[in-house]
C-alpha cells in the first residue's frame, strides 16, 4: 500500500478571519505557510493553542477554504474541492464515532459510501478490526467501549477507506497519561504499517517528538522551525523554539568574540568556550546562551561555583535552582549521586559545551 502513497503540499497558504467585535478588521490565523509532506511521512504540527495548526489541518480536510494559497494532495490542487471528495481520513479529538451505529457499521460507513461490494466491505472491515484488536467488539455500540477502544474504532474507520492522507486532530488528548503513551506507539506502528501520509496536530511536545518523522513548530500562524525532533531540540532557531520544546535556561554571556559557520566563540561566567550558534545570530546585537537543565553537571572539578537556592525531588531527577554569578539557573540531576547537597550549599558545576547554543535574544521581538 505504501507504494501508492502520495505527498501533500501547502504553498503560501494564508487564512484570515474577521476580528471578533470588529468585522472590518482581519486577523491572520495562518500567514503565508508552506509545508511539504513526503509520501508515507508522518509530520507533526506543534504549537501553543491558537497558533493556527488546527486551521491548517482543517484547510487540508476541506472544512475551511484558504484565503489565499494552494493545497496539493498528490498532484491535484484541492483547495476548491469539497471535503467529501478529497479522500482524506481524519481522527478527531472527540473520536466522533457515530453514536447510533455499532462498531462494524461505523467502520463500514465510508466503504458503503463508495458503493463497494458487500462481501468486500465485510472482509475489509473484519481485517482492519482484527488489526486493531477490536474484532470482538464489532456489534457493540460506541458508548459501550472504553476510551482506548473508541480510539481504535476511530482509527479503523479513518484508514479502512485507504485515504491518500490521514489527518490527526489531537486524537490522544482525551486519554489518560498512561494510555496516551501506549496509544501513540500504536498509532505510529499502524501508520507505518499502512504507509499512509499523515499530518498530526498536537500541543504535546513529547507526543510530537515520539511519533513524527518531522516536527513543525508554529506560532502566531507562522512556521518557526521545521526539522526532526532531535534537530529541533538540540538546534533551536530562536528563543521561542528553545523555550517551547523542553526546558531551557537563558543565560547572559559576558562576551561574544566570534560567530562563523554556525559556531560561536564566547565568554561565559569568565570562561571562554566554543558552542553552536543559531542562524539568527548573524546580524543580531544582543545574545543569550541556551543551557538545557540536564546539560549542567555537578562535579568537584567544575569550572563554576554555584549557590544552591532551592532543591526539589521529582523521582526521576532532582531539581536544583542555582545561582551562578548572579544568574538563576535550573539544573536537573538524573544521576542523583550527590545526595548530600542542601539549600545554601556552594557547589562546583560545569556544562557540556557541545550542547550549549547561542541565540539572538532580540528574536522575541520578531513578531
Amino acid at each position: 500500500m505504501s507504494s501508492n502513497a502520495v505527498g501533500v503540499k501547502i504553498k503560501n497558504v494564508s487564512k484570515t478571519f474577521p476580528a471578533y467585535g470588529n468585522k472590518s478588521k482581519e486577523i491572520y490565523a495562518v500567514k503565508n505557510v508552506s509545508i511539504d509532506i513526503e509520501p508515507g511521512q508522518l509530520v507533526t504540527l506543534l504549537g501553543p493553542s491558537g497558533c493556527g495548526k488546527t486551521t491548517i489541518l482543517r484547510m487540508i480536510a476541506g472544512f475551511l477554504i484558504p484565503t489565499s494559497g494552494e493545497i496539493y494532495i498528490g498532484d491535484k490542487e484541492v483547495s476548491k474541492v469539497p471535503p467529501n471528495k478529497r479522500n482524506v481520513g481524519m481522527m478527531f479529538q472527540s473520536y466522533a464515532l457515530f453514536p447510533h451505529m455499532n462498531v462494524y457499521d461505523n467502520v463500514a460507513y465510508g466503504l458503503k459510501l463508495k458503493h463497494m461490494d458487500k462481501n468486500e466491505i465485510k472482509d475489509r472491515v473484519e481485517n482492519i478490526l482484527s488489526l486493531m484488536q477490536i474484532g470482538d467488539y464489532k456489534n457493540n455500540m460506541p458508548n459501550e467501549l472504553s476510551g482506548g477502544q473508541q480510539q481504535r474504532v476511530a482509527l479503523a474507520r479513518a484508514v479502512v477507506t485507504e485515504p491518500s492522507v490521514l489527518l490527526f486532530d489531537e486524537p490522544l488528548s482525551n486519554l489518560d497519561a498512561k494510555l496516551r503513551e501506549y496509544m501513540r506507539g500504536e498509532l505510529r506502528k499502524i501508520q507505518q504499517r499502512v504507509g499512509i501520509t499523515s499530518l498530526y496536530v498536537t500541543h504535546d511536545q513529547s507526543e510530537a517528538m515520539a511519533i513524527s518523522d518531522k516536527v513543525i513548530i508554529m506560532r502566531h500562524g507562522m512556521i518557526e522551525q521545521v526539522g526532526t525532533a532531535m534537530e529541533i531540540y538540540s538546534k533551536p532557531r530562536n528563543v521561542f523554539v528553545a523555550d517551547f520544546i523542553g526546558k531551557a535556561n537563558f543565560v547572559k554571556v559576558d562576551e561574544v568574540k566570534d560567530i562563523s559557520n554556525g559556531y560561536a566563540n564566547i565568554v561565559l561566567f569568565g570562561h571562554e568556550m566554543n558552542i553552536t550558534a543559531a542562524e539568527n545570530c548573524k546580524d543580531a546585537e544582543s545574545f543569550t546562551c541556551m543551557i538545557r537543565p540536564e546539560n549542567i553537571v555537578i562535579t568537584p572539578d567544575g569550572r563554576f561555583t554555584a549557590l544552591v537556592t532551592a532543591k526539589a525531588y521529582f523521582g526521576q531527577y532532582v531539581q536544583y535552582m542555582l545561582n551562578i554569578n548572579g544568574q538563576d539557573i535550573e539544573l536537573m540531576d538524573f544521576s542523583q549521586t550527590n545526595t548530600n547537597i542542601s539549600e545554601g550549599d556552594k557547589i562546583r558545576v560545569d556544562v557540556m559545551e557541545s550542547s550549549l547554543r547561542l541565540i539572538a535574544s532580540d528574536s522575541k521581538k520578531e513578531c
Partner: protein
Amino acid sequence: MEAVASVEKTKFSRRWDMKRKEFLMLLRQPGLLLAVLIVFAILFLFCVYPLIRLFISCLTDESGNINFNNIRYIFTKTDYFRAFWNSIKLGAFVGVFATIVGYIYAFAIKRTAIPGKKFFNMMAMFPILSPPFVISLAVILLFGRSGIITKNILGIEGNNIYGFTWLAIVQILSLFPLSYLNISGMLESLDSSIENASRSLGASRLKVFLTVTVPLSLPAILSSLLIVFAKSLCDLGNPQVLAGDYNVLSVSAYLQIVGLYNLKTGSLIALTILLPCMLAYIIQNYWVSKRSYVTITGKATGQVELITEPHIVIPLFIILVLLTAFTILMYGTVIYVSFVKTWGVNWTLTLDSYKFILKRGANAIKDTLFLSAISTPVTAQLGMLISYLLIRKNFIGKKLMSISTILPFAVPGIALGIGYIVSFNTKPLLLTGTAFIIITAMVFRTLSIGVETGSNSLRQVDPSIEEAATVLGASNVRVFFNISLPIMKSALFSGLVNTFVRSMTSISAVIFLVSVNWNLLTVSILSEIESQRMSAACAYCVALMVLVVLAIAVLELLVKQIFGRRRKIYE
C-alpha cells in the same frame, strides 16, 4: 490618505473574494445548494410574501393603484387612536405584572425550599397547554353578569366584568408562565456561588436579592417584559371575549373584517399591531439577549443552596398556592359547567353538552386533529432541515433565513392570517377554503419552535461527528439523513409535542382561514361563547384539553417505544 484607502480596498476585495469562494464551494455541493434554494423559496412564499402582500393591499385600492384612503379612514372614521393606546396600556400593564408574578414564581421554585415544586411547575404549564380563552370563559362563568360567585354566592346582579380590569387579570394569568419559563431558565444558569459570595461578605438575603440576583437577571426580566407585551398586543381570543367597550387593536381589526367586511382597513389595523410587536421581538433578540451575564460553560454550576428561612418561604408558598388555587378554580369551573344542562338557568348535571358537541362539532374535532397531525411532522422535518442549515452550514443569506423563520411567530397571528387570505385567494395560488392553507398557517406559525428545538439538539451534537462522515465521502445530503437526523430525532420528538399543542390551540392565525369544509375547535369555542351557549363552549374546551393531554401521552409513548433504547445511548 491614499494608503489607507488602498488598504481598505484590499480588505474589501479580500472579503469579497472569500464570499465568491464560498459561493463556488456551494455550487459544487448540489444537494446543499438545492436545499438552501428550496428552503428560501418556501420561506419566502409562506413567511415573507404574505406580509408583503398584506402591506401592499393596505396601501392600494381595488384596482391596484396606490391610495391612502385606508389610512385616512382608520385615523378619522374609526376609533383607532383610542384602540391603539388601549392596546399599548394593556400590553405594558400586563407585561409588568406578568413579569413580577413570573419572577416570584420562578424565584420561589428555583431558589427557595418550598414544598410541592413539581406540582407548581406543572400548574404553570397549564395555561400554555390549554386553549387560549379558557381563563376568560371561566371568568365570565364565575364573575360575570350571572356568574356563580358574583350572582349566586355574593348576590350581585349584573356585575360588569367586560373591560380593562378583568382582561388584564386574565392576560396576566395566561401569560405569566412565559415569563416564569424565561426567568427560571435564567436563575437556573445563574451561578449561585455569586450570591453566596455576596452573602459571605455580609449582605442580608434582601440585600443579596436586590444587589446581586435582580441585577444579574435583568436581561431575563427585560426579555420577559417585551415578550409578554408583544403577546398581549397580539392576543385576539381573550379581548374578543372580555374587552367589551375597552377597544383594542386586534379586536378592531377582527371586527373590521368580520363585522364590516372591510378587509383592507382590517389589514391596516393588523399591520399597525405588527410594528410594535416586531419592535419588541427585535429588541429582545438583538439587544437584550446579548446583554446576558450568564455564561454557559458546560460545567454543572455548583449545588444551589436553597433558602429555608420561614419568613421568606411561607409568604412565597402562600402566593403560589393562591395563584394555583385560582387557576384550578378556573379550569374546574369550565369542567363543571360543561356538565351543566343550561348555565345560569338549570344546574342539573347532564351529558347534553357533550352530545351536542359530538353532533355539531364532530367535524371540527376531526378536522382539528387531522390538520394538527399533518402539520406537526411537517414542522418538525422542516425545522430540523432549517436548523441543520443554520447551525452547521455557511451560505450567503443565512441571517435572512433565520429571520424569515421567526417572522410568522413574531407577527400577530391575525396579521399572518389576513396575509394568507390576500396572498392565496387567486390562481395559481388559490388556497383559501382548503385544508392546505390551514396546515401551512399552522406549520409556519410554529416553525420557529421546530427550528429552536432542532438547533438546541444539534448544538449538543459534536460537529466532528458530522465531519467524520464528510471526510469519509458523505455528501451534505447523506450526512443530514445518515448522521444528523437520526441523532437529532429523539430530542426533537419532545419539540413535536409543543408544536402539536400549539397547532391544536391556535386561534388568531387561523380564524380567517377556516371554512365550511375545514373548521377548528378553537373557532367553534369562540362562536359558542359569542352565542352565549356556555355549556357547549365549556364542553368544547374540555374536549380540546382532553385531546391535548391524550396527544401528549401518545407522543410520549411513541418516543419511549421508538427512541427509548437509543436515547440511553446518547446520554
